[in-house]
């Protein structure tokens, strides 16, 4: 943002259609009723309740016998107070695969090695595969897709000693473990067993980055479980890759 715009910006704003302060927005939605006059009235009522006043119903179309699709334009009377906007920052910037590769290449000067597995009796590889396999998840390719990341996916039901041995053999920079099954807190137990085993097997300060993923981990419990980072439901490979770069391939001191 330019300095000029920053100084000129008011604290209270409204949406912009074609004139400052007109508050104009457009929206589209479907109501589960047949298309008739009443349906159009219902759409306008919804618009009014959403703060669009006056609202202009510009399009209404039946979608099958039971639904109607609407497009509404209107001036929204809500005001936005920029002083009350709170932004929760991710602790690391989101990078594109290209940026991840070039960061690893320039800072690590070798491939970043990730060893992944489902440990214990957990056979649900969905999570680890979504992150590691090239097929990926949510339209993002998995870590295998990254030229500068070497992925060793050990699959399901891997024993902790086996994981530690493989991590050492591969000189893993990061170890990634997925835990879906939560019966009797198996995910917690497996994770602490794993982190303890790594701390025992490696000299202090040399333990690879320990990353755990699963739908049922509490946010902020990483330290308690002895791991570096926990990822929850809906995490994409890109987020994990960006985190790895942040944790492993970012200069610790930044000189402005």
């Amino acid at each position, binding site marked *: 943002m330019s300095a000029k715009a920053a100084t000129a910006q008011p604290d209270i704003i409204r949406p912009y259609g074609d004139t400052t302060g007109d508050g104009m927005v457009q929206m*589209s939605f479907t109501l589960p009723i047949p298309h008739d006059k009443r349906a159009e009235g219902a759409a306008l009522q919804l618009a009014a309740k959403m703060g669009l006043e006056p609202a202009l119903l510009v399009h209404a179309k039946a979608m*099958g016998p039971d639904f109607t699709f609407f497009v509404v334009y209107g001036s929204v009377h809500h005001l936005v107070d920029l002083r009350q906007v709170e932004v929760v920052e991710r602790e690391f910037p989101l990078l594109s695969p290209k940026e991840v590769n070039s960061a690893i290449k320039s800072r690590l000067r070798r491939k970043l090695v990730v060893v992944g597995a489902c440990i214990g009796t957990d056979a649900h590889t969905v999570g680890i*595969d979504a992150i590691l396999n090239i*097929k990926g998840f949510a*339209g993002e390719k998995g870590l295998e897709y990254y030229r500068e990341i070497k992925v060793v*996916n050990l699959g399901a039901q891997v024993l902790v000693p086996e994981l530690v041995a493989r991590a050492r053999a591969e000189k893993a920079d990061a170890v990634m473990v997925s835990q879906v099954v939560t019966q009797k807190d198996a995910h917690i137990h497996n994770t602490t067993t794993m982190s303890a085993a790594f701390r025992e097997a490696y000299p202090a300060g040399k333990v690879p980055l320990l990353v755990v993923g699963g739908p049922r981990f509490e946010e902020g419990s990483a330290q308690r479980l002895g791991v570096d980072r926990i990822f929850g439901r809906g995490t994409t490979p890109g987020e994990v890759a960006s985190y790895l770069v942040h944790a492993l391939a970012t200069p610790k001191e930044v000189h402005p």
Partner: protein
Amino acid sequence: MKPVLDLDTSVVRKARALARKAGQPVVRLATSHTTVSVERATLRLAGLAGADHERVPWVNHLVDQVRDQVGLEHGVTTPVFDALRRGEAEDLLTLAQKASSGSVSFRLPEGREGTRAQAVARREVARGIRTIDRQRAARERLIKRHGDPRQRPWIYLIVATGDIYEDIPQAQAAAREGADVIAVIRSTGQSLLDYVPEGATREGYAGTYATQENFRLMRAALDETSKELGRYIRLTNYASGLCMPEIATLAGLERLDMMLNDSMYGILFRDINPIRTFVDQRFSRQIHARAGIIINTGEDNYLTTADAVEAAHTVTVSQLLNEYFAKEAGLEDWQLGLGHAFEINPDLPDSFRMELAHALLARQLFPDAPLKWMPPTKHMTGDVFRGYLLDGFFNLVGAMTGQGILLVGMMTEAVVTPFLSDRDLALQNVRYVMNAAGGLTEDFHPPRDGFIQTRARQVLSEAVDLLDAIVHDSDAEGDPPLLAAIADGTFGLMKRPPGAGKGLDGVVRRAPGYDNPATTLLETGETK
């Protein structure tokens, strides 16, 4: 559609010859091995269905038991039907139940005993094959009665709620809105399950489990809708992953009409063992051939994982390999829904012209195949307005190049699972383009040596070069060149050696005297 590209026919012949050369050793490999899933599929044809209280299918129990006791290298059916002849149980189901508790001892019968067991096995498996034959005849009858879609391409829509009972009304609504083909996406991770779940399922993640009962329920519902609409609505599912042969078999038994079935997708994108994949794939394609099912191949995946311009020729290579493997397994041209996709970065100059060139190349290389044209996904950003335009251009390429099956693109791709309105808008988009420009196939002749012709020739020549590199590939173990090529990362960035990957432990080399009545009946076309 008349050929509009001046392709050098000798180059086309060379490309096919190379694909054959790359494929043949892999077919030899496939015919000298079996897998747990091929054996389970054979038992399913013999009528074994259902699962225990932990939902482990009986076919899994029986195959595991036989494998533990006498191995699978002679095929599962000989020891199984021998045990039935010896009176170990009165029927297959009871035998599987007894075997699962370890109270059946299997043996490999020899001489006359062996011949008799094999004759019974053949008689029982033939029942399943005849069910598939009957289902094929039923489909042909229903198509005659209700009719095919009036237009080409057929309009292909996806439903995926995770709950079969939600899927059904959605699928029926989609058909009423104009869909000709309904695909039920599978639950994430099903491809890596080494068993087929049982029964009607209501819980899936980003899709619905492929089960025999789900297949049956959906087909029955779409039969009703076909009657209502006067148009036969086709049903699609996925014969891929570790249970490819079994799912193909269930599809044949329950009259599914199309199946996603790619020759290398599982290897490259799911890290399934290459040998497992090729063995399973051949069996599943033989079933599809018999069942009159149209396969859909997955070339779109090459374009979403690599740059769609640079990797355009990998699509052609994969199509040629898929064609070779499909025909070898008995599929006919009309059953080859070879895939390709509209995935070029729209910010590139001439991106639309390149899309046209690539689509025409596929059209002309496979003139009698119902090509499957896949919509943009990679460059759908969340800007739904731009996405809608992009889908319009995708539809236009489909209309101008005579594609066979058009997967309808959603403007909310990569945003949300499509709203009801998204699907309606998407279908309006398709209808507008088909209506306005469907006839363009008549007028559209890219000029000789113009941009489109030149680009198509370039892609074809790159494909020939890649095929040439594949057939000359090798590894230390002396594997077939195609396997060596898959192992060293020739396809994209994935290196998949034949001695690794999921499902490897389910691969068994056939012994002399291996018997599988299903394979015999599928290869000879016999019914008894």
